């Protein structure tokens, strides 16, 4: 591994100064489960590694019925799924954080890091997209927010510019009539990369019909996708198997997967249909619970 400096600033301001000063030579360290491997294998390089875990705001996790969830960018997967309130409210987020790697990875890996790593197969990103999450970003030119579905721009590439980093992920509040779920297909039960991952979110109206829905697909394009037409199709409809099947067909139409060792493009497209139906069914059950 190429040599680098290490810094662990304790304020957002100090981190911004370091990141601005070093530009593209700076790499951010949160849980390290991706960046350490990438540095070791020469996939990325760093002159300085900036450890953001000592900044208190990045480790906080706050929920209110008014503003929703403010998830510090370095909050770990374990901290999310072990929080019963949070896991109950944000089912898709709990589902995805519980299946990233094994326990050792979940102890360290953060949702902010999973988002910034921008893998097309990242498990938390479809969950963030269906939950309508926004990344709160700070940098040399001040603060801005980036919607989860616009955050990734290519495999391993995100929309942050030099000097910027994600401080928190903001997710709208959830009411009892909303439910969400994330599922992926892998050939074993755990510790693998998604062949396809799908997140779904449903809001029911007073009559039990679908007031709003969001569907997102992972590992079937260069970035995780928000399935706009499939989501909009469900609005105002009865949450029936037939309607879920129709939404699944619409979602399959935007999938442009590659064929690789994990599966063929044809197989992945088929899986999109299966997982859209399954995640909608689970999201519905959670919204009705």
């Amino acid at each position: 591994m190429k040599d680098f400096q290490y810094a662990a600033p304790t304020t957002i301001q100090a981190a911004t100064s370091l990141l601005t000063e070093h530009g593209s030579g700076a790499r951010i360290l949160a849980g390290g489960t991706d960046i350490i491997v990438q540095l070791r294998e020469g996939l990325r390089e760093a002159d300085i590694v900036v450890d953001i875990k000592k900044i208190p705001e990045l480790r906080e996790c706050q929920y209110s019925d008014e503003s929703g969830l403010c998830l510090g960018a370095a909050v770990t997967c374990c901290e999310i799924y072990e929080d019963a309130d949070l896991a109950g409210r944000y089912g898709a987020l709990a589902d995805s954080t519980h299946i990233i790697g094994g326990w050792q990875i979940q102890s360290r890996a953060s949702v902010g890091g999973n988002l910034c790593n921008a893998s097309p197969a990242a498990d938390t990103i479809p969950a963030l997209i269906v939950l309508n999450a926004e990344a709160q970003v700070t940098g040399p030119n001040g603060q801005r927010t980036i919607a989860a579905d616009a955050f990734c721009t290519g495999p391993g590439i995100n929309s942050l510019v030099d000097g910027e980093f994600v401080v928190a992920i903001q997710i709208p509040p959830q009411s009892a009539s909303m439910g969400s779920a994330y599922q992926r297909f892998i050939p074993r039960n755990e510790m693998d990369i998604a062949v396809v991952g799908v997140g779904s979110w449903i809001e029911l109206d007073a009559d039990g019909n679908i007031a709003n829905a969001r569907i997102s697909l992972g590992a079937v394009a260069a970035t995780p996708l928000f399935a706009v037409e499939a989501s909009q199709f469900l609005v105002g409809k009865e949450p029936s198997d037939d309607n879920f099947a129709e939404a699944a067909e619409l979602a399959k139409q935007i999938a442009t997967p590659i064929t690789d060792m994990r599966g063929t493009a044809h197989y992945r497209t088929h899986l999109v249909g299966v997982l859209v139906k399954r995640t909608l069914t689970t999201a519905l059950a959670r919204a009705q619970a």
Partner: protein
Amino acid sequence: MTTATKKIHVTTTVNGESVEFLCEPRNSLLEVLRDTLGLTGCKEGCNNGNCGACTVIVNKLPVNSCLVFGVEAEGAEIETVEGIADANELHPIQDCFLEGAALQCGICTPGFLVSAKALLEKKPGASEETIRFDLSGNLCRCTGYDKIVRAIQEADKQMSAATVDSTTND
């Protein structure tokens, strides 16, 4: 290794004892534990977070020490496989691994012992499914896992019985 790297001074706690060391920022905690501190129980298997042979406990949670920088250990509490046995007495999990032949080549064993201890302390009475899921970050290429799972279930029984005994004696 290039020359003239500035080493960083780190103070941490390993198996209950205060420890100081110097390391380069790029050194993993695994390298520090094995090469600097001589704690060779944790093994380098894959060195990329898949196999779990390097598992140690940092601040009560199991982590892959190959995916932690040594400099991150500043102020942390670390437990390694060397700290599991009590003086000359093996921990029940270690006993059960021996009795149940839950190891063959042994490379994965320290990681399994550390993860299993963390699991049983957190979830006594864990189901077989929970044990298998929570230990999925530890790979074994010899045993086929069944003997490992059974050893952990047996250790769980012994640890629960010991807890009941000590409560009764109080």
